[in-house]
């Protein structure tokens, strides 16, 4: 090793080499992050303050800064408010179903001493289906004329329903409830298995001690199960709020791509899609970006609030 400068140890040279190899290994992933993740984030913000205008003299379209025009345009769009109302409705319903149901199913499964593996596979099976398959099947079941669900209602001597096609936008509309049922069926497996794993981590001694004190089942759930799984519960609650507010495919497929009678299940992400690709061409990319920024801020508020609350507790 000559040329390292007399008595100087090889350290800087090694460090350079180490950094060089380090970046060699990093470069692929960093480039992908930069192009497909970091740059679009910045671009989303910039785009939401830009607009395309047409030069009056030459007729050539150009991009320019328009301040808050995109935002005021979407705030004046009645569909914007409908979409937010629907998304909030979906989130609330999906939390009642998609958050509470898996928890109680997990508690029930944890009590059973038999057929555990079978039931676990069963609950997770729908998660593996391609979502389009599951939703096309559900939209077949929901069909008012020849669907299976109306037949079941008919058989039980209950009034039949229009399901997703039910008009009207009252809070907890039947249409949105139908979307939530399909969504819960498709997605509950993941949450159930995570809860189940959390329940199995609860030390058995806690229950034994409670039994010595003569605690009922309900009190055991209330004072041992829920406190012991609180961390997982609160984390999944937050993740689910963020995930359900991005609901898209359920509404999109159950209403065959929006339009028509879809106003009562239109979601925010569906509106982003429609602004950008369906309404009137390229100029609306900027409105879509503005709506994306609004959605991001709302979701960031939820995540921030979650972090704040959990920091207070610990």
């Amino acid at each position: 090793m000559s040329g390292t400068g007399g008595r100087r140890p090889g350290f800087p040279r090694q460090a350079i080499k180490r950094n060089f190899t380090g970046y060699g290994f990093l470069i692929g992933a960093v480039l992908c992050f930069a192009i497909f993740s970091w740059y679009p984030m910045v671009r989303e913000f910039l785009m939401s303050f830009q607009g395309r205008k047409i030069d009056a003299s030459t007729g050539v379209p150009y991009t320019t800064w328009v301040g808050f025009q995109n935002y005021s345009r979407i705030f004046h769009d009645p569909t914007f408010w409908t979409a937010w109302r629907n998304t909030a409705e979906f989130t609330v319903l999906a939390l009642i179903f998609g958050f509470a149901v898996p928890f109680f199913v997990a508690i029930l499964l944890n009590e059973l001493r038999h057929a555990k593996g079978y039931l676990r596979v069963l609950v997770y099976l729908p998660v593996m289906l391609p979502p389009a398959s599951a939703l096309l099947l559900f939209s077949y079941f929901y069909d008012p004329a020849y669907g299976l669900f109306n037949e079941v209602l008919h058989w039980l001597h209950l009034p039949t329903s229009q399901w997703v096609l039910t008009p009207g936008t009252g809070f907890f509309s039947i249409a949105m409830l139908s979307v939530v049922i399909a969504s819960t069926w498709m997605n509950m497996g993941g949450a159930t298995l995570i809860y189940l794993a959390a329940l199995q981590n609860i030390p058995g001694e806690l229950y034994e001690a409670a039994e010595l004190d003569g605690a009922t089942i309900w009190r055991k759930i209330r004072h041992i199960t829920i406190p012991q799984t609180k961390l997982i519960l609160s984390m999944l609650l937050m993740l689910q709020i963020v995930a359900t507010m991005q609901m898209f495919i359920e509404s999109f497929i159950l209403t065959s791509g929006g339009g028509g009678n879809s106003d009562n299940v239109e979601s925010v992400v569906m509106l982003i899609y429609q602004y950008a690709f369906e309404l009137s061409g390229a100029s609306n990319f900027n409105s879509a970006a503005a709506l994306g920024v609004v959605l991001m801020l709302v979701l960031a508020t939820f995540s921030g609030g979650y972090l704040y609350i959990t920091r207070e507790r610990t």
Partner: protein
Amino acid sequence: MASLSTSLRTARQQRRQVRAQGAVQARGLISNAQLNRGSSRIIYRIVLTAVIVIATLVFIGPLYFLFSDGLKSTQEAISSPPTIYPHHVHFSTYTKAWSFMQVGILLKNTLYYAIGALLFQLVFDVAAAYALSKLRPVLGNIIFAMMLATLMIPAAVLVVPQYLTVASLPIVNFHLLGTPEAIWLPSVANAFNIFLLKRFFDSIPGDLLAAAAIDGASPLRTLWKIVIPISRPILGVVAIFSFVGVWKDFLWPLLVESNFTPTRETLNVGIYELSGSAPQNLVIAASAMAAIPTLIFFLFFQRNIMSGLTAGGLRG
């Protein structure tokens, strides 16, 4: 034969005993002793049967209709009231759906995208996580933090600028719409993969790698010969979830791969796009065919998928 069956039976009993001993530690709300007492035992049996029956109806029931309704004729599929089983079995519905909905091409596309994304993610994300964990270049921590920050931004929010970026890459102006790279490359930017892999690599003792380095192994050789063989479980998790992720994704392939002839869509998007113009029984048959590969995949990797889920879910 008799000895074989008795030995099988004792093996099963032993397994049951081991399981029962395990259940003493990780017990539920109700103790085993209480469950074995007279009347509770009967109640337990009733609840168990009810749960199994209801769960089977709720989760297998729709799947039964998914596969059996694809055997109906178009008339029977939209007859009212609906039939519970196909009165006239038409296997031709499946073959018609295969050609009309182009299931073969869609299947080939999806496999190509999913396997490619899996390879790209494994190569780039493993290399990056290894660099961040063991080689630790300058600013590595900042890069890692910036990657984790992307987890905070929900994917659906960024589709518009991502779409525009893929339509024309910055600086080089490549047009990626309709190419497989439009799915492969963005899938690499998966911070959760990097996080899982880095956490696993962090747990590999540095001495092991130092020993390899003293023997003259290059970082690449160390990665290939030592790190990757140890990390097989976590690589399995990343591979399975990247594969399933591409298979289940909808919005992104809908944006970047639609409107090409011959179709470049994935199964998930393709059967939806054609569902509007196809008769009901073909739609259901195509949906059933789209579901078969993932169901088989699940039955094969069931254990890994479910343990990987909790590995990812219990993070933090």
